[in-house]
């Protein structure tokens, strides 16, 4: 047997495109956020409400990632925000090359913020940088407060954690200890910003908007 040391990175193709995207956003002074969560945690509802309520303050464009269909893109289009739908045809995450293509179809110069809604999946998307300025992880209360402990990678890498559907806590139908989720998320990531929200009813959205508007202003400097 003969062994040869290689020491070569795998997945360099994705990294190459991610770096290109990162430089693109830096040059254009645009903020780009990659939103990651399990399926059904409310990403699209968060997006549509955010776009509508911040309409007068910031212009948002959206890249929608789904395995199949343009159901989400249609919901975004109803807000009049520019949107590009990517169908991954079975793949469980978006890749940086797909984002690079989608950016050519968005009027980036007219936008302040590009939001990427990744494929619903709490695991794989965390391993693929898209060249975004930051990751936003969404956890909805019916999923359980143990998720930050069980899926640490995405919580360790995100700038913001949105704990969604807190309106469901009112009737006591759902057990979810917000303090436990916060403490577990912060174990690996002291800097993570955590906003409990209800995108359906509107609770807590103002805190998220404040963070978003400030971050957009910082990117534009």
């Amino acid at each position: 047997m003969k062994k040869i040391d290689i020491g070569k990175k795998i997945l360099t193709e994705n990294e190459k495109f991610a770096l290109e995207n990162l430089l693109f956003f830096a040059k254009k002074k645009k903020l780009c956020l990659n939103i990651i969560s399990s399926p059904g945690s409310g990403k699209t509802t968060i997006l549509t409400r955010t776009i509508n309520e911040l309409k007068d303050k910031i212009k948002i464009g959206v890249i929608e990632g789904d395995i199949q269909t343009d159901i989400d893109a249609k919901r975004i289009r109803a807000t009049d925000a520019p949107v590009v739908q990517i169908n991954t045809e079975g793949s469980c995450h978006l890749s940086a090359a797909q984002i690079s293509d989608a950016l050519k179809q968005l009027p980036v110069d007219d936008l302040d913020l590009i939001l990427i809604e990744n494929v619903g999946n709490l695991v794989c998307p965390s391993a693929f940088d898209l060249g975004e300025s930051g990751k936003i992880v969404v956890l909805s209360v019916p999923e359980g407060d143990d998720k930050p402990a069980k899926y640490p990678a995405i919580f360790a890498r995100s700038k913001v954690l949105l704990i969604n559907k807190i309106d469901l806590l009112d009737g006591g139908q759902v057990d979810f200890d917000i303090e436990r989720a916060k403490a577990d998320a912060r174990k690996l990531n002291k800097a993570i910003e955590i906003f409990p929200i209800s995108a359906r009813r509107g609770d807590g959205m103002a805190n998220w908007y404040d963070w978003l508007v400030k971050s957009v202003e910082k990117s534009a400097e």
Partner: protein
Amino acid sequence: MHETMVAQSLMAIIAEQAAKNNAKPVAAKISCGMLNPVNDEVLRFAFEAIAKDTPCEGVKLQVEHKPIRARCKNCEANFDIELSLPECPKCGGADFELMPDASLILEEIEFQTESHNEKN
């Protein structure tokens, strides 16, 4: 589930090295950070599937998961994080900065030596 993409990328490098060394690859060692969600079994399965009928068929994969490194903000010690108890082993501080997770790296390839043409 994204292991197929990893397997493809991995196979491309192994095939390239095999052609360059004119030898049959039999094993490969890869490493990645603990936060990288690569499942060893899924990766082996994906690799086996795409390597069938290629020079990479039969290559055994060994995956090493590297610990997550962190730097304590209190005493500035560098240490490996225990996911079950994330604190500084030196001062017990819980305020630390995570280092970037180790990349997915193909560390080494093992080739069969009974090849007639053994040049490195």
